[in-house]
């Protein structure tokens, strides 16, 4: 049942087996189990820019959280050769050299590996919708379907946590507060990493996520559903 990626007509008719399996995995997803029973993949992508139409993913970094612990033995970090390699301006910001990118495999190779890695885990990210937007666009193109892994946004969690702390459950957001990863890390006194490598950002996000998750849990939020509720505005 191999899908021939080079035969454009077949892509949309039937998605790649990975996508089908991914859908099945989450078709009866239960949000009411205790938090420790889920696995989470905290991920970060590096992009050539924020334009969904033009820009591309040039690296994916991710780390696994199992049993509410960061598992340093289960990590993921790949560079990706963009299609439009000449226009890559990200080199300075991302500390990726054009040589590194030229030597890297294409997304067609990396994306399935990432889906395998994330398997039945929830995807966690700082502003996860942005990362998932890019991933899903690529998945649709390459594999003929999108990822069904539920996402958790650490920004939403941080907002929820702040509301709990301040007691203003329905109040408007104070616009002066920053939700950047860097500022939250400082605010919560989390261990810091030198930033701007997708993997290190994923690690930093994993610390933030673990912090918030366990704070919530200590406050009595025991299931995934509880966490989602806390993050809802």
């Amino acid at each position, binding site marked *: 049942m191999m899908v021939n990626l080079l035969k454009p007509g077949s892509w949309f008719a039937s998605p790649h087996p990975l996508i089908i399996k991914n859908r099945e995995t989450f078709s009866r997803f239960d949000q009411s189990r205790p938090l420790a029973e889920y696995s989470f993949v905290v991920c970060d992508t590096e992009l050539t820019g924020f334009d969904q139409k033009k820009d591309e993913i040039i690296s994916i970094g991710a780390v696994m959280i199992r049993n509410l*612990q960061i598992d340093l033995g289960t990590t993921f970090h790949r560079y990706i050769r963009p299609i439009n390699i000449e226009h890559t301006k990200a080199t300075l910001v991302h500390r990726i050299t054009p040589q590194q990118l030229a030597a890297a495999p294409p997304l067609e190779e990396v994306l399935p590996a990432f889906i395998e890695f994330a398997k039945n885990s929830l995807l966690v990210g700082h502003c996860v919708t942005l990362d998932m937007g890019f991933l899903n666009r690529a998945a649709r193109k390459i594999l003929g379907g999108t990822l069904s892994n539920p996402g958790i946004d650490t920004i939403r969690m941080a907002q929820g946590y702040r509301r709990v702390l301040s007691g203003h459950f329905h109040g408007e957001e104070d616009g002066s507060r920053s939700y950047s990863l860097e500022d939250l890390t400082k605010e919560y006194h989390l261990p810091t990493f030198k930033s701007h490598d997708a993997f290190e950002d994923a690690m930093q996000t994993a610390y933030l996520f673990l912090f918030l998750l366990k704070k919530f849990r200590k406050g009595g939020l025991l299931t995934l559903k509880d966490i989602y509720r806390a993050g809802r505005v």
Partner: protein
Amino acid sequence: MTTFRENDVHAVAPEVAISFLKGIMPFNTLNANTLKSLARHCRIDFFPKGTRILTADTTELTHLFLIQQGGVKAFLEDDNGEVTLKDFRGEGAYIGALAIIRGTPANLNIETVEDTFCFLLPREIFLDLIEKQASFAHYYLKSFSEKIVTTAYNELRHHKVARRSNEDLYLFSIKVGDLVKDLRKVVASATIQEAAAHMSEHRVGCLLVHDTADAEKIVGIITDRDLRRKVVAAGLDYQQPVQTIMSGPVQTVLSQSLCFDVLLKMMATGVHHLAVERAGRIIGVITSHDIMLLQGHSPYYLLKEIRAQQQIPGLYPLAQKIPEVIRGLISEGAKAGNITQMIAILNDHILERMLTLLEQEMGMPPLPYCWLLLGSEGRREQTFKTDQDNAIIYADPADEAQKHKAETYFKAFADKAIDHLVNCGYPLCPGEVMAINPRWCQPLSVWKHYFERWIAEPDPQELRYATIFFDFRPGFGESALAEDLRTHLNRQIAGRDLFLFHLARQCMETRIPLSFFKNFIVEKDGEHKNRLDIKRQGLSPFVYFARVLALKYGVKETNTLARLKALMDGEWIQRELWSAASEAYELQMQQRLVHQLRQIEAGVLPDNYIDPADLSDLERRMLKDAFTVIERLYGVLGQMYPVT
């Protein structure tokens, strides 16, 4: 370029962990590759402020905690909920190393006092490091030396057992030169078989090997392990010279080294046999086992050591260690029934070893004999330093000459044995119920006669002290003699109600000590003149009760708990009474043991007088409950043997 990708996939993750580990002792001594592989096995966890991470005595450690950020406090909580703060630990500190190394649950409570991130290193990996990296063993063990106080933790938890400051100081005060045993060595050209024979003859686990030309020059060592691994398992010819399997050169320590330092060296190097050197000469071998023994906490080691003794005086210090061992058991929460069994086993082994050596010294006895243990020893209910109650029974002599020979031999034998027992710390019996008393050193027929008379013509006055004889058991020698006597005794008693009546009455003479509590309340502020004699007033009624019924129904057991059990099994007493009596009895035994242990530790001669002021409310209530069981026992006896 594929290499780039492979690195990319596998090597990135641990960077966080590597830089963290690099920054803390003793991980900073590891090489890059080891660190890398360690880092991949780490997990990171977060504990919000106020999270209990470990609970003393409960949490089993699956990994070592290394604090990346934040802080914890370590504390103990005693039975009354009183908290003793032991330590604060911050970034870079570890949690749980001691418990992992010792293979025990956590010994302290750990709670975060700040939001805390920890690296978790799996237990097996940590143990592997301890074993393979000398710097690790040294680092963790050295810091334990300051707080080797695990036993002190026990004391806090079981506050009834008094604190002792010098518990582990043996390790710090005794030098290996004081411990070292006689030098045992063989020539390098000796065969493996000769060396093995030499080892088993002298009951040693290792031998030094000396140069063929120069007996002073030690070239190697062989151990039991070498014989197992290099010879038996490998199918090596036993006629090979011993130098083919020895390890050499031998590692040495100076005789003036402290035991603790030597133990450290052993743990760090994994070498458990070290040659001891004094003034440039090897004077013997020290093993980790020898040093462990010094701590004296393990009944097993003590037992092994007793068995290995070749000289009677060597038994003296071992017998003195029994309270130490028992103390360990009590603080580990063993029940009184088990504890008294353990005391009995250890005492029995001392006796067995001593009499075996004494037989060797004096030549074999002219007749088979059995060393009898009486009273509490016979019942396996000794606590600490109980008086000697013993006797000798020997086979009936065939003629006058043999009789004379036996009397002379056993008299001399008993004299020496009793002396040795005194040296071991078992005081003489004030009533002279001992084998040195000619009356209690007799052939089987005379013993049978003694019992016949006690049973047939019971004189209450005489019975009072004769009862301990009814609890005899074989301690050493020909136990068939003791069994013969027991069978004879049971046959005699059957149907002799007058004898049993006297025993029962004697039992009920002891008043139930409930007034003890009343007075305690009344004399709240006064001096507590009425102390409880827990042996006579509390425990004896149970012992007497069990004895009367055991004799009545021909139960051969002598131990009170075992007698009660047998009586229940035989449906002579109700199950409910059995369980109440066993519990009440064991509880009081425990109280008595703890009481005596505290006295020993305070340097006071142990006795049986319990001061009510020393008891908690809970203990007083439990004692009171135990006393009400005595009333029920008297009820059963009173119905069986009513005063008409």
